[in-house]
């Protein structure tokens, strides 16, 4: 066999070809790194003072229609009069109940653990909206599809933080990957944290600190 002006044997040709195939099949370092990520967020309720900056910036960043929310802040008043604010959003669950009922695979978990929606596949049946225990999904009347928080996927791809995290004036939201050494991982591993509706067995990736019992329904 003549290849590039050189005569090579069949055995050499097979060896070279299989090495090439193996090389192509092996993920590169950057790909491996990307697959290792497990994005999560930590929200410290005691740091939130209800300024709603995250709600506004999220709406502006993601073109959220009026009346709908990808993130919102709940306000609770303790019998003592103390006011607690609890920001909520999609929990990007490890076992997301919203993915199962989607008839067209439009809702999926990406390799980094984000629960996302492919607008081209979403038919707007509302099954995922009905399946979310956290009220985090809504039918977007403009797009005709389901909608929810994406952890600002488009910003993450550019190496930026989600808009709500960047905007929060008190640092109540901490974002990062649980598979990398960072502030989020250190806190989640060293301090007791809570998740919403643990009985739902969805394994949420939004962790809370100082979450009032009343907010967990």
């Amino acid at each position, binding site marked *: 066999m003549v290849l590039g002006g050189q005569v090579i044997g069949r055995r050499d040709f097979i060896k070279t070809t299989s090495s090439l195939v193996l090389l192509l099949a092996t993920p590169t370092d950057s790909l491996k790194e990307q697959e290792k990520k497990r994005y999560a967020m930590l929200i410290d309720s005691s740091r939130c003072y209800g300024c709603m900056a995250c709600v506004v910036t999220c709406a502006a960043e993601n073109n959220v229609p009026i009346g709908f929310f990808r993130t919102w802040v709940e306000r609770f008043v303790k019998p003592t009069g103390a006011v607690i604010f609890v920001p*909520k959003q999609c929990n990007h669950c490890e076992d997301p109940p919203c993915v199962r009922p989607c008839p067209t695979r439009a809702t999926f978990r990406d390799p980094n653990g984000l629960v996302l929606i492919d607008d081209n596949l979403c038919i707007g049946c509302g099954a995922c909206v009905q399946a979310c225990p956290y009220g*985090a999904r809504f039918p977007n009347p403009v797009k005709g599809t389901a909608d929810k928080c994406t952890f600002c996927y488009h910003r993450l791809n550019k190496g930026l933080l989600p808009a709500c995290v960047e905007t929060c004036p008190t640092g109540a939201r901490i974002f990062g990957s649980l598979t990398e050494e960072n502030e989020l991982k250190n806190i989640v591993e060293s301090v007791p944290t809570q998740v919403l509706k643990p009985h739902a067995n969805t394994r949420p990736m939004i962790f809370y600190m100082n979450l009032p019992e009343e907010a967990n329904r």
Partner: protein
Amino acid sequence: MMLETSQYYYPNEATTPIVWDPVVFAYTFLISGADMIILASLAYLTKRLTRAIPLLIVLGISFFATVLFGPLADLRSPHKATLIFSSPHLLPTAETPGISLIAFQSILWIIGLILSVTFALLYFSYNMYLKASEGGKLSKLCRILSLGIRDEASYNKLQPILKGLAIIMIVPMTFWGIYPASLMISQTWVFLWRNWTTLIFAYYADTFVVATAISILVYFIMKAGRVDSEMVKPLLKVHAAGSISVVGITALQLAIWWFWFIDSPINQSIAIVIPFMYLAIVLLSASFLLSIISLRFPVVSVFVSLAAFSGTIINKWNMVVNGQLISATGLGVLELHLPSDWLMLTISPISLGVFIFVVLSFIFQLEVTKLGK
């Protein structure tokens, strides 16, 4: 959203209190077509209720064929609806774990429709030959629909195939009989549906009630009130069993909730569905009693259907529409906002089913005296 108020719901729920519009209610009504096909299959296999087979199969197919128009009208992007068939979520993967019941049922709908239409064509084949021989405007069509069957002997050779089809057909139709209750209870987080433990059983029995009530009413209209008791009696018996089952299951559910939620704030939310359940119990009990009376006086059977319709409309509205009004928190009741065209949207799919039935009733004979004739 303050702690001291008894109402607690998520903001997105307040903007869209009803994700599945009342058109889904029409959908649940049309599912009774699946039950009619089940009854036709059982009638064919057991050689009972044979006179009702043509009516049940034609009415059943007419309704079952239009069943998907309900959710189609409810889709936010109906132009992409075919993706359910071209990209169905039927196998679990790492990215999309689980199986979508909507996709599964949609595929079963195609299978069920093909099986039931094949069954109907084979079942009516000899009858079509006889009708073609009589002449008339539809004789050419009837000759095509006779599928080449020209005598009783060749029709009898079809019996094993018809039996096989009748057995296989029951499987997809049973899945449809418990759908969308199975979806509501297993793949949604709507508070009421998840806590309605008997929903699947109530729903299954309820669709039989609708199926028999429609069949009885259609037969009553066809015969202009001169009802043949031999034809109607078996349907009335099935109807009576269905009605009393729904009554019993609904009462059981009320008792379960009473034990679970009596001292809970959730009881306030559940309260919106309770009066409807009592009303359904009363109306379906009336339908049960009337069906017992109709066994002796068949002319009363029209009232059986009317009582059953009222009862099941209330029951299904309660399950489907009121059910969605209770927040996922279980601690709030949302306000009902219906789109202005909701009634038109709800009636349209049912009207289409009725229209198909009327067209088919001109082609196929809805009453037979002997199998195939």
